[in-house]
Every structure is written in C-alpha cells, then in structure tokens.
C-alpha cells in the first residue's frame, strides 16, 4: 500500500498547480496554431511542445540536469549560440540581389523600424496602467517584436529581459504568422487604388562579385559604427558570404539544412522552457501581446508612408505597397505585398521589388537591436 501511495505521489495529479494546467493549454494552442493553422510551424511546434514539457510537475525538464534546462543554458543563456547560428543559416538562404539592384530600398527597411522605437515609447506609457512596471530594458526587448524577426527578438530578449523571453518569442513568431491578416488593411488605408496600381521598372542584373563584396562591406561598416550589432549582423553576413562566395558550397549547404534545422529544434524547445506559469501568466504578457500588434502595425504604416515619400521625390515609380515589406518577416511580407498589388492590378508582380525592402528590414532590425543593446544594455 505504501508503494501505491508513493506511486500516487509520483503522478502529476496531486502536484498540479492551476497555472501549469493553463500553460499546458497554451502549449496545446501553440501546437494547434502550428499544425492546423500553419503559423510559423518550424518554431511554434517545438516551442509549443517545450511549453508542454516544462510545465509537467516532477518531470524536471527545466531543472538542473533536465534536457530543456541544458538547452537553454548552453544555447541561449551562456552564449547566444542558437539565435546566432539560426541567423547564420538565414543569411545563407538570403539573396541580396534585389536590394543591391535598388539600394534606396534600404530607406524603407529603415522606416519600418519606427515600429520598434515607437513601441518602446508605448511600453513605457503602459507603465501608467496598474500592474505594468516595465524597465527600459524590458521595454526595449518587447519593442524588438516590431522587427518581425524571431532570432533577433530572442537574442535581444536573452540579453535585456530573460524573464520575458518566452512571451516575447511567442508574440514575435505569432505576429509574423499573422502578417497576411495584420498588414493588408493598413496598406489599403494608407494608399489610393491608383498608387497600388503603380508598376515598377524591372531590376537590373546584379553581378556575382557585387553579391560577394556586399556582406563584407556590411560587416565592416557595422564593425566601425555599430559594434554592438556585430553578433547578429556578423553571423548573418558570414552565412551570406558562405553562400555567395561560391567556393564553400558544401559548408553553405550544411548551414542551410542540417545545421539550421537542428538548431531550430533546440532553440524552439529552449524557448518553450521559458513558458512557465510564473513567467507567462502575468498581466505583462497581455501587454506584450498588445504592444507586439502595435509595433507591427506602426512598422507597416511607417514603411508604406516612407515609400509614398520616396515615390514623390523619385524619378522612377515606386509602388508604396512595397514599403510594408520593410518590417521583414521574410518572405511572407513580400508575398503579402505581391498579393495586395495583384488585387489592384492583375498584371503587377511586385514580389521581386518587395524583396529589397524585405531583406533591408532584416538588416534594419538587427541594427536597431544593436542600438538598443548599446544604449540601454
């Protein structure tokens, strides 16, 4: 009978706290979004499963010796190994051709970062409400959700506000998945049908050498002027150079496949382990979710408005829709631009033109993360 008592005590049931049950439900919702709704499944499926595992009483996944504890410590806390390796992989999958062909697109990528800095201001304003007490560090980590870039958000949150990391990562990936729902109304509200119909000149061909020199130039400029941004920008450019150099195809291939896949799984599980009830079930999480939506919306609007300004002062036509791609969320935002463009003008294929601001937005938010790290870190 004593063994049976031990056994009963060793089930979870007498140990569950209500918060853990709610968090397991959150994990299941993330799995549902990932599998059925296909919301960024590469990350949200592992995060959701990690959330399930970490909230089991007695299983010890997130205690010393546990698998998730180890992954979080080795890959995020001690060194931001996982987000940087993912960024390297994303760099190796990115083609900067469209941006090199039309470098002014960088201005759109810059404008869209207004979403980040405006949200930072908004997060401090939220402190006026009861229950919110964000430090400037917290506010910066939350605001980076507006960068629409998962590894950047995880990297910055791990440095500035580790206790908010779980909520920030979930918000970042969820809103990236919601780009097709969030962006179109804003894009349509800020443009006239005529503007949306504007066709753009075909991009010039970019030579192999330009593509090779580009990542080297980016890292050198970053090193000189924004060293705090070099971990992110450096690994991104390294991955891109592996791809574009053409001399290490076998390395580039591994970086784009087995390495990024392995790290994605580990990163997702590790992030999931931060979805404990104490950390997640707070009013601050609601604030983070709200601020994330605000950040995305402001970034989209700022990109579109910047594109309208550019169009006015440019000799060549610029369709203002492509400004929305400046938030990054590669390549989904560019596809949304293309879709909204086609609705206005069935002969207007904006995809390639939107790739320029799209990859510019990746650089822009990595730069913004570097600035925040330098100023409030």
């Amino acid at each position, binding site marked *: 009978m004593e063994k049976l008592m031990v056994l009963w005590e060793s089930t979870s049931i007498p140990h569950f706290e209500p918060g853990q049950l709610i968090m397991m439900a959150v994990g299941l919702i993330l799995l549902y979004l990932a599998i059925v709704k296909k919301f960024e499944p590469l990350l949200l499926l592992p995060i959701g499963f990690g959330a399930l595992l970490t909230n089991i009483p007695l299983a010890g996944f997130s205690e010393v010796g546990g698998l998730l504890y180890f992954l979080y410590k080795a890959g995020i806390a001690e060194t931001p190994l996982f987000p940087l390796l993912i960024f390297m992989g994303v760099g190796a999958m990115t083609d900067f051709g469209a941006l*090199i062909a039309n*470098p002014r697109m960088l201005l759109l990528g*810059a404008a869209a970062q207004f979403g980040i800095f405006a949200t930072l201001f908004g997060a401090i304003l939220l402190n006026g409400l009861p229950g919110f007490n964000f430090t400037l560090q917290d506010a910066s980590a939350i605001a980076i959700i507006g960068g629409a870039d998962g590894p950047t958000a995880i990297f910055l949150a791990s440095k500035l506000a580790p206790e908010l990391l779980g909520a920030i990562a979930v918000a970042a990936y969820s809103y990236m998945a919601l780009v097709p729902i969030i962006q179109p109304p804003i894009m349509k509200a800020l443009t006239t049908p005529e503007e949306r119909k504007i066709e753009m000149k075909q991009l010039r061909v970019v030579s*192999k050498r330009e593509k090779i020199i580009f990542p080297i*130039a*980016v890292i050198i400029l970053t090193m000189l002027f924004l060293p705090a941004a070099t971990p992110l920008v450096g690994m991104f450019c390294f991955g891109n150079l592996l791809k574009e150099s053409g001399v290490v195809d076998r390395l580039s291939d591994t970086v784009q496949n087995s390495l990024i896949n392995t790290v994605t799984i580990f990163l997702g599980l590790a992030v999931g382990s931060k979805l404990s009830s104490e950390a997640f079930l707070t009013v601050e999480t609601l604030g983070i979710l709200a601020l994330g939506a605000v950040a995305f919306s402001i970034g989209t609007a700022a990109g579109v408005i910047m594109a309208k300004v550019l169009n006015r002062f440019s000799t060549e036509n610029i369709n203002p829709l492509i400004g929305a791609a400046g938030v990054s969320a590669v390549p989904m935002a560019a596809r949304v631009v293309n879709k909204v463009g086609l609705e206005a003008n069935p002969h207007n294929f904006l995809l390639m033109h939107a790739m320029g601001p799209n990859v510019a937005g990746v650089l822009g938010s990595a730069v913004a993360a570097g600035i925040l790290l330098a100023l409030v870190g």
Partner: protein
Amino acid sequence: MAEQLTEAALLLGVGMAVVFAFLVLLIGGIQVIAAYVRAFPGESAEQNNTTNTPASPSTTELRPDLVAAISAAVHAHRHTNK
C-alpha cells in the same frame, strides 16, 4: 515615469536617426561597390564564368540515361514499323 518617458522619447529619436544614418551609409556602400565592379569588369566576367559553372547536371545537354532511352525508343519503333 516622466523620466522614463523622456528617456524613451530620446531613444526613439536617436534610434531612428542612427538606423537611417547607418542604412544611408550602406546605400553609399552599395553604390561604391557597383561603381567599382563597373570600373573593373574584366575580372568579373572571368570570375563569373568560373563561379557560374555549377556542378549540377546541365539542362541543355541530354543526360546519358535519356540518350539511352531515346535510342531504345527509336530502335523499338523501327522494329514495330517494319
């Protein structure tokens, strides 16, 4: 909170200024690269040739198994037409 708000406003201004400054700098960088590549195109062409030769099977040449298939097809056809 007033102090924090001032800080946040300052970050908003400085942050956007630096982001724009940096990316404008990058526009200049890209234009310099493009000018450089246009100024010294010879090496580029040569390099393009070597780096553009992929290891993957060329699509314009018929692969050996396809050639075998073709000759088998033609051969089979002749016999049936006799």
